[in-house]
C-alpha cells in the first residue's frame, strides 16, 4: 500500500520537474483570459445566492415569529410550559425549553455514542483495512448514510425499541436507575431521549466515519514514514502522527454529524414520544425542537401558536448556526496549535 502511494508521489514530482517553462494559462497571455471576468461574476453570483438564501430564511423566521416574541420574550426559549389552548387553570403559554433541551440532549447522546465508533471505523478504513475489503466496506458505510430517516424510525419503533426495552432499559432502570435519576423508570413504551439518541447515533455514524476516512487518507505519507523510521508501532504511528495531523478535519466531520443530529425530524418524531413535559429520566418521553415544529405547524390552533412554533424553529436555526460557528473556532484553534508539529 505504502509503495503504491510513494510511486504516485514521485510520479507527481517527476511531472512537475519536466515543466521548465510555465504553462500558457498561468502567464495571463491566453486569449481565454477574457472569459475570466464573466466567469468570475457568474460564480460570485452563485456563491452570494447561497448567502442570500440563508439571510432570507433567517429574516423570514425572524419576522414570522415577531408576534410570539413580543408576547413571550425569552420564555419562548427557557419557559417550560407549552399550552396552546386557554383554560381556566392553564393560560396560553409557549415555552420551548422542553424542545430545546430535548434537541440538545439527544444530539449530545448521539455524538457521545457515534463519535468514537465512527472515528474507529474511519481509522480502520483508512489505515488498517486490507485493500480488497476497503472498497466494499466504504461503500456499505456510505450506503448507511443514504438510508432515509423514516426507515431508521420504522426500524427503531418495530425492532430496536422492543429490544432496547428488555435488554437495556428495564434492567438499567431497576438497578442504576434506583439511585441515579437519569436512568429512572418506569419504562412504559420505551420512547425517550436515550432511544432517540442511539438511533440518531446510527444515522450520523456513516457521515462522520466516511469523512474521517477521507481526512485520514489526506495525511501525507511522510508523516507515517517518519514515525515508523524511529521505531514506532502501527498503533503509535496512527495515534501520534496521523490523528493529530488530521484533528481539524475530524472535528469538522463530527460537527457535520452534530448538525444532522440536531435537525433530524422524522426519526426523532417517531421515537422521542412527543411530550412537552420535562422529566429527569432519559427513558421518559420528551420532544425535540424539529419534531415539535413538524408536528404542530401544519394545523396550528392560532396565529400566536404558529408564530411560537416559528420562534422555536428560529431557535433551532440559531443553535445550529452557533454550533457551526463554535466548530469553526475550534478548528481554527486546533489547526494553529498543530502547525508547530507534534510528532
Amino acid at each position, binding site marked *: 500500500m505504502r509503495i503504491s502511494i510513494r510511486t504516485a508521489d514521485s510520479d507527481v514530482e517527476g511531472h512537475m520537474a519536466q515543466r521548465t517553462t510555465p504553462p500558457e494559462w498561468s502567464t495571463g497571455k491566453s486569449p481565454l483570459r477574457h472569459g475570466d471576468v464573466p466567469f468570475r461574476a457568474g460564480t460570485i453570483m452563485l456563491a452570494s445566492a447561497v448567502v442570500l438564501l440563508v439571510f432570507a430564511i433567517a429574516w423570514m423566521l425572524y419576522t414570522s415569529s415577531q408576534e410570539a416574541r413580543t408576547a413571550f420574550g425569552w420564555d419562548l426559549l427557557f419557559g417550560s410550559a407549552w399550552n396552546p*389552548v386557554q383554560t381556566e387553570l*392553564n393560560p396560553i403559554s409557549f415555552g420551548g425549553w422542553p424542545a430545546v433541551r430535548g434537541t440538545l440532549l439527544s444530539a449530545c447522546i448521539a455524538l457521545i455514542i457515534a463519535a468514537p465508533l465512527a472515528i474507529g471505523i474511519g481509522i480502520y478504513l483508512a489505515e488498517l483495512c486490507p485493500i480488497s475489503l476497503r472498497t466494499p466496506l466504504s461503500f456499505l458505510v456510505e450506503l448507511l448514510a443514504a438510508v432515509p430517516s423514516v426507515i431508521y424510525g420504522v426500524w427503531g419503533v418495530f425492532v430496536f425499541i422492543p429490544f432496547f426495552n428488555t435488554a437495556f432499559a428495564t434492567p438499567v432502570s431497576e438497578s442504576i436507575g434506583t439511585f441515579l435519576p437519569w436512568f429512572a423508570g418506569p419504562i412504559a413504551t420505551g420512547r425517550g431521549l436515550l432511544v432517540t439518541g442511539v438511533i440518531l447515533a446510527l444515522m450520523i455514524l456513516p457521515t462522520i466515519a466516511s469523512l474521517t476516512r477521507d481526512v485520514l487518507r489526506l495525511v501525507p505519507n511522510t508523516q507515517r514514514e517518519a514515525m515508523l523510521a524511529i521505531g514506532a508501532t502501527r498503533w503509535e504511528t496512527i495515534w501520534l502522527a496521523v490523528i493529530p495531523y488530521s484533528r481539524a478535519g475530524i472535528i469538522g466531520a463530527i460537527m457535520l454529524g452534530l448538525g444532522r443530529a440536531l435537525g433530524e425530524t422524522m426519526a426523532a418524531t417517531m421515537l422521542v414520544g412527543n411530550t412537552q413535559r420535562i422529566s429527569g429520566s432519559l427513558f421518559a418521553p420528551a420532544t425535540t425542537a424539529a*419534531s415539535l415544529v413538524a408536528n404542530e405547524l*401544519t*394545523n396550528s390552533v392560532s396565529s400566536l401558536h404558529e408564530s411560537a412554533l416559528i420562534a422555536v424553529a428560529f431557535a433551532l436555526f440559531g443553535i445550529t448556526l452557533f454550533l457551526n460557528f463554535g466548530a469553526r473556532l475550534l478548528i481554527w484553534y486546533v489547526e494553529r496549535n498543530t502547525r508547530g508539529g507534534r510528532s
Partner: protein
Amino acid sequence: MSIVTRKIQATMLSLAIASALLLSACSSAPAAVEPTKAPEVAAEATAVPEPTAAPEAPTAEPTKAPEATATTEPTKAPEATATTEPTKAPEATATMAATVAVATKAATKVSAAAPTATEAAAVVADWAPRQLTATLSGSGASFPNPLYQVWISVYKNVVPGVQLSYSSVGSGQGKKDFIAYLTDFGGTDSAISSGDVATQAPDAMHLPMVMGGVMPMVNISGIKTSLKFTPETIAGIYLGAITKWNDPRIIKDNEGVALPDLTITPVYRSDSSGTTSIFTDYLTKVSEDWKSKVGSGSAVSFPAGIGASGNAGVAATVLNTNGAVGYVEVGYALAAGFPLPYVKNAAGNFVKPETANVSAAANGLNISSDPKKLAMSITNSATADAYPIAAFTYVLVRQTTYKDAIKAQALSDYLYWGLTTGQGATVRLGYAPLPEPMRKASMTALKTMVVDGKSVIDAPVK
C-alpha cells in the same frame, strides 16, 4: 402476547393501510388512462351486460353511457356502489371495499349492521352528474381522506372529464388554503372561526359530508373483550389520575374482566389534528377537570402519556405497547382488528361506535336554515343510542364568489354525488353516513351556490 406477535400485528396493520392506499392509487391509474373502459371491467365481474354496450346500447340516451343505464335500471352502473352489493360497483370501490373487508373482518360486521335506509335513499334515479371538463383541487382534513380518495377514484369513471385532487394536509392547513384561494374546496373537521369567516371568507359554507367516530383503542395482552368506559374513566386516564388498569374505577364498569396490575400508557396525537379536536371537545363537555386544566383544540397540552403522529401512528404505538390506550378514528382500530369498546353516553347507556350509533349522534339536531351555519358539535349527544365521541367532517365551498361557472357546476355535481351515491361507500371505510335531515340540509345548502347570480346545480333534494 409476545413481542414477535405484536411486531407481526403491527406490520400487518401498516401493510393493510399501505395496501389500501396503494390500491386506491392503482385503481385510479387505469381509469386515468382509459376512463371509458372502467364500466366494462365492473360488468365483467358481475355479468351485468347493460353498461358494457355503452356507445351502442339500446337505451334512451346512448351518449351518456353509465348514467343512462342508471336511469333506466336503477341497480346498475356507478350508482350500484351505494347499494348493498360491493361487487357491482366500478372496480375502484369494489377492490377498495374488498381490501378493507379482508383487512378488517370486523368491518364487514359493521356494514352488515348498517341501516339500509340511507343506502337505498342514496340512489337518485332522475339525476346524473353533467359530463363537464374541469380541474378541481382541494386540501384539508386527514380524517376523511381515505373516503375522499375512494370517491375521487370512483368519480373518475362517472365523469372522466373532471380531474379531482384532494391532499390530506390537516384541517388547519385546509382552512388556510381555502381562505387564501389556493384550493377550490377545503376539507375540515372543525369550523372556520366566526371571526375569520366574517373577515376573510364571508360566503364560506361548511357542508357536512360524512360522520365519523373516535374511539379509545386498548392493548392489554390477554384481553380481547370490549372494555367499557365512562366519561370519567377516559378523562381520568388522559389526565393521569388513573394510572393502572386494575383501578377500581375501571373495574367497576368491567365486572368479569380480569384486568391486570399494569400501568396505563395513554397515547395521543402529537400532530395537531381534527381527531384531537373531536376527542378533547368531548372531554371538555364531560369533565370539569379536563375543561379547567386542558381544554379543547386541535393540539392541547396533554398532562399524561406519549404522542404519536397520525391516526396510523397512534394505532401502531398502541399495538406495540402493552397497557396502552390511544384515541383513533374508528376505521383505524377496525383495520388493526381491535374490538370496539363501549362508551357510556349522555343517556347513561354503554354503546359501541358502530355505524348506526355514530349516525344517531346527529339525531334530534336543531339544524339551522341558514346554509352557512351547518357546522356544529355533536359530541356527547343526548340521544339514547348515540355514540358520544362523534363528529361531522365538512367540505368548505364558496356560496357566491366562484368565478368559473363550469368549475362550480363540476364541483357541485361531485359534492351532490358524494351526498347521494357516495354515502354508500362510507360504512365499509369505517365512517357513518349522514342522517337524512342533515344530508338534506347539506344538499339544500349546496343548491344555494351561485355564479354571477345564476344557480349552478339543479338537482332534487332527496
